């Protein structure tokens, strides 16, 4: 469970550094931070159902030298307390850490009102904000200290549940740098979150069909690893993005901007196509929103067709 890894790493940090504080807004049994209340009764607080207050208060804590991590569902960080994140944290240059759980379709049975398909995009448009989505336990373990000690505010997406491990044990990830998980020269899939595992499955299926497709984990949406995007464009000449998010303003959009700036090549974007979330199981929603490995395979075929027509 990602949640257990998160709590384990966070506990270590809190034991070492008394400045680290945890804030929650009546979802502490959901994200598991309730267990920290017993260990650090003075440094973990449940404010109740009041996200806006929590985020500005976190900024105040940061202003007096604390390192506050504010937790709520990803949808509420992005929508409910955005002005607080923008003004009290980002514009005031106070490095609050916003942890948003249940990203994208993993909100599942909570349905549309709780399904953030725009959170990364919204946070990406906030100056100063670092935007990151650790993909699996290894990445989370490696990135969390960098996130906690970042001198800028950070928005981090956190899956609560079991996710497939895609990075080998001992991976040393660097905030802002993508990781190539599988090499290939025909096309590149730049993926994030849940979609990294789908991208690997797609690359595997395409290998059976004689195609060598590169897979990159782009876990930091901002600052985007533009050098790596450029490299993929130059070396493979075709790119597919895959994200558990709207293709508007998320990874697909960020990659499109980079390609337009540096090296235009054909691009296909897999993700949610400008629509609201829905209630249902994650499997149902992956199908519904065309986010499966099969959909990525289709996108790679389309992008290769466009690449061929260019050459």
């Amino acid at each position, binding site marked *: 469970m990602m949640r257990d890894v998160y709590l384990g790493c966070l506990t270590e940090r809190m034991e070492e550094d008394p400045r680290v504080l945890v804030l*929650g807004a*009546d*979802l*502490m*049994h*959901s994200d598991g931070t*309730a267990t920290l209340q017993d260990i650090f009764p003075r440094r973990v607080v*449940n*404010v*109740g*159902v*009041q996200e*806006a*207050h929590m985020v500005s208060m976190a900024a105040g804590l940061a202003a007096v030298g604390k390192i506050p991590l504010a937790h709520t569902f990803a*949808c*509420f960080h992005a*929508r*409910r307390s955005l002005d607080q994140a923008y003004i009290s944290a980002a514009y005031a240059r106070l490095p609050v850490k916003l942890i948003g759980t249940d990203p994208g379709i993993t909100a599942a*049975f*909570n*349905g*549309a*009102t*709780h399904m953030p398909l725009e959170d990364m995009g919204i946070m990406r448009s906030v100056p100063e904000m670092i935007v990151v989505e650790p993909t699996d336990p290894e990445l989370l373990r490696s990135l969390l200290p960098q996130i906690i000690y970042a001198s800028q505010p950070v928005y981090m997406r956190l899956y609560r549940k079991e996710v497939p491990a895609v990075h080998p044990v001992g991976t040393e990830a660097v905030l802002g740098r993508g990781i190539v998980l599988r090499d290939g020269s025909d096309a590149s899939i730049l993926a994030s979150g849940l979609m990294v595992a789908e991208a690997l499955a797609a690359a595997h299926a395409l290998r059976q069909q004689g195609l060598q497709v590169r897979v990159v984990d782009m876990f930091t949406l901002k600052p985007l690893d533009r050098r790596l995007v450029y490299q993929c464009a130059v070396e493979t000449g075709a790119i597919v993005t895959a994200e558990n998010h709207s293709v508007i303003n998320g990874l697909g959009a960020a990659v499109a901007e980079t390609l337009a700036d540096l090296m235009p090549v054909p691009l296909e974007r897999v993700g949610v196509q400008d629509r609201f979330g*829905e*209630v*249902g*199981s994650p499997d*149902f*929603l992956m199908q*519904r929103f065309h986010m499966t490995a099969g959909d990525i395979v289709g996108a790679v075929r389309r992008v290769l067709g466009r690449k061929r027509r260019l050459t």
Partner: protein
Amino acid sequence: MLSMEKYQELRTFAHRIRGETLRELGSLGFGHIGGCMSIVEVLAVLYGAVMQVDAADPEWSDRDRLVLSKGHAGPALYAALALRGFFPLEMLQTLNQGGTRLPSHADRCLTPGVDMTTGSLGQGLSAAVGMAWGLRLDGSPSFVYTILGDGECQEGQIWEAVLFAGNAGLGNLIVFIDHNQQQLDGWVQDINPLGELRQKWENFGWHAQDVDGHDTAAIYEAVLSAQAAKGSSSVIVLHTVKGKGCSFAEGETMNHHMRFTQEQMEQALADWEKEGETLL
């Protein structure tokens, strides 16, 4: 005063809403059981005696409206609507299934009879204030009802709406607070206590009452008194028990969103049936 027959009818209606809600959630094996069970009686009074609605014409412009501000209790509302004939009872078994018209949080675009989309706590009261104000501008006879959670009352937006509507004196707005003392992470008292709710709302200029939220006759009387307070917005604080009438949920601290076994649900339904016999 409620006649003895009507009183009996409301108790039976509440009992049926409770049973249908249990079966509906039972089909999934998980859900917001606690906060559904605590609003069953107020739903029975609203849909059984108070609200002017037409199941054959859910969009009727002179209907009374309900905003379920604590939108996670959608399943209880759906049971009440189905029993009132807005859609077939069998539809309750589609709760949360892919493509359903019954999502876990109330959605006005999906479900016949649902007047407002909610789920992000704190917004429903403001929407209800807007409806009441707009209807008053039109000289409409309709009332607007809304149900808040007590945990929900920690949201700042609630108090913005309370200030506004207290000043606006909306005689057609009647708010219920499901004061079951519990929220998601436990007891309101341990997390961020609300103090005396009735007094607080009174200080904001509201007509305010305290009522046993599981006593249909008392709720009905309180609504009549709120309707009579023509110049003010009204609040009725319902003193309730989270999980009321569901044997595996009632009395538990962590009964907000529960996973349960089929056996637990069968037992709960058997207990519910036994409870029904005392109504006869």
